[in-house]
Each structure stands twice: as structure tokens, then as C-alpha cells.
């Protein structure tokens, strides 16, 4: 496949980082609880993005490309490195806790966010990706394009994941 010359690739990369850099940082935080591993993941994503942009020919939007690269890189790392004993959960498998956490007491926004991320990390990679893209305010059609799911399936998943998060005591 023909590759872009380096200056064009640099320009695309800068465009992508300007538009989606903050989203990539949020994505890394949602995938990795540990600060060092999160920093490594973010770096891996940026490197993968820069390398991939040599082949970007506008076959999809830059946004779709960036999110695919980021999630696919995170997925490949998690498949390779995750603890084999850890079982990733499908939404149907998740039981609500016996006593839901009192939301009134969850006044610390940072802690609440971390709790949401911890819950999201326990999902299987596809459910995790769907809810993270939803939280980035992408519509169902775009999420479908990035993930390969149907838009209807995305909508159903978002609904179920939101309900699961609420049942587990996350707003």
C-alpha cells in the first residue's frame, strides 16, 4: 500500500491529537488503573496511531480511524498481558450488589469517576469500548462503524450497560 510522505503523516497526526488527544487520555485511564501502565498504554496508542497514519487514505473519517487504532491497540495489549485468572464479564453475567452504594455519599467526583472506570474495566473489551465511545458522546452509527456492531445492537448495549452501572451503584 502506498504510504503518505512523512510531512503529511505528521500533519495528520497533529490534527488527530488536537481533536482527539484528550479522548485518548481518557480512554487510557478507563483501560488501566495503574498510573505507570496507563502512561505506557497511552504512549503505545500514540505510537500505533503515528505508524498507522502512513496507510490512512480517507477510507473512513479520521475520528473513526483514531478510535479504532486506540481501542484495537488497547485490546491487543489486554489480550496479550491480562491476568489469565481474571474473567471478563458480559453484561448479562453481572449481578447487582446486595446493597447498592448510597449515591448521596458519593460526593467526591474523582472517586466516583474512578469507580465508574473500575466497573467499566470489568466488562469484556467490546462492551467496554461501546460505553467508552458513548461517554465520548459519539452516536450509535459512529460507534457501529468503529466497532463493527450494528447501530441497533449498539443502542441496546448502551442501554444495558447504563442499567448495569446504575445497579452497581454508579451514576
Amino acid at each position, binding site marked *: 500500500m502506498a504510504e503518505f510522505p512523512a510531512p503529511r503523516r505528521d500533519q495528520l497526526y497533529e490534527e488527530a491529537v488536537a481533536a482527539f488527544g484528550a479522548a485518548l487520555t481518557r480512554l487510557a485511564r478507563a483501560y488501566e488503573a495503574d498510573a505507570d501502565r496507563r502512561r505506557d498504554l497511552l504512549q503505545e496508542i500514540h505510537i500505533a496511531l*503515528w505508524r498507522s497514519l502512513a496507510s490512512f487514505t480517507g*477510507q473512513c473519517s479520521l475520528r473513526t480511524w483514531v478510535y479504532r487504532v486506540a481501542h484495537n491497540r488497547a485490546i491487543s495489549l489486554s489480550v496479550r498481558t491480562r491476568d489469565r485468572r481474571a474473567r471478563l464479564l*458480559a453484561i448479562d453475567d453481572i449481578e447487582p450488589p446486595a446493597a447498592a452504594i448510597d449515591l448521596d455519599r458519593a460526593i467526591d467526583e474523582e472517586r466516583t469517576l474512578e469507580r465508574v472506570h473500575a466497573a467499566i474495566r470489568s466488562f469484556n473489551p467490546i462492551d467496554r469500548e461501546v460505553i467508552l465511545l458513548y461517554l465520548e458522546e459519539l452516536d450509535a452509527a459512529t460507534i457501529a462503524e468503529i466497532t463493527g456492531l450494528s*447501530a441497533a*445492537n449498539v443502542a441496546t448495549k448502551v442501554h444495558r450497560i447504563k442499567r448495569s452501572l446504575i445497579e452497581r451503584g454508579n451514576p
Partner: protein
Amino acid sequence: MTIDTIREKAEAFDRRTRRQDVWSIAVFTLIIMANAVTAAFHGSMTDKIGDLLTVAAALYVLTFYLRVREPSPAALGETPSLDFYRDQILRRQAMAGRFWKVVLLFVPGMFLSAFGDAFVLPRPMRVYVIIGVGFAGLVVLVEWLNRREARRLSAELGFLDREQVRAKTGQNR
């Protein structure tokens, strides 16, 4: 991180990958050539068979290594996540227990090359029994490890297959 840092790290990564490829291919080529030369010009018939079995094992491992390499940078952006995740699981499944299978592949050839001549001499029956039982035990252990890993990966693949059916049909749960 600046773009210069990213570019530098990406180029270093590409150099490292290329170097690993060159080294791996060189090592296997050396194994193949050394055994092929030995099989052609030296040793008894048992030695030759052992060397040729080692050549076959090395060829298989080399082609397998080339087949299951990491996805290209372009694939990360071109492939929808559901397909990409499935490919990763399939790749993992192909790799599962592969180390032990590779070890097993080399055992007969190396065994024949090293002990072939001694082995064909008449020996007490219990020597043959011990060797046979040892090899069978190794095979059973490897198979058990492989099946355990395969079960775990199959569960994940089953989940992804159901997701793909839903994606194609637009069917919801």
C-alpha cells in the same frame, strides 16, 4: 509527548521488529542448513532421518512464526474492533501451547540424531518401555495444557461469534 518523540519511538520500534525478524529467520535458516548438510553427507540412516525430522520441524516453526506475526499498523485502523478482537483471540488460540508443541516437534529428530545408533542396538525391553512411556507422558501433558487454554479461548470466541451474528442481523437480545 512531542511529535518528534513519537516519531523517534515509532522508528525505534520498527527497527527493533525488523531486527528480530532478521535474527529469527537467520537462526532457523542456520538450523535448517546445518541439519540438511549433515543429513546429506554424514551419519548413518538413523542420523539422517533424525536430521531431516529436525529440518521439517524448523521449517514448520518458521512458517508458523511468519503466519502469526503482529497485525500491521494499517490493520489497527482498517479493522472494526469486533473483527480485530476476534482475530486476536484466534491468534492467541493458534499460539496457545505452541511452545510445547514446538518442543515436541524437535524431540524425535534430535533424539534420533543424538542416540539413534545406540537405540537401534539390541537393548533390554525395559529401556524401550521407559522411553515410550516418557514420550507418551510428555505428549499427554502438552495436550492437557493445550486443551485447558483452548477451552478458555473458545468461551471468548463463542461470545464474539454471538456478537457478530447480532451485528450482521441487527438482532438484539
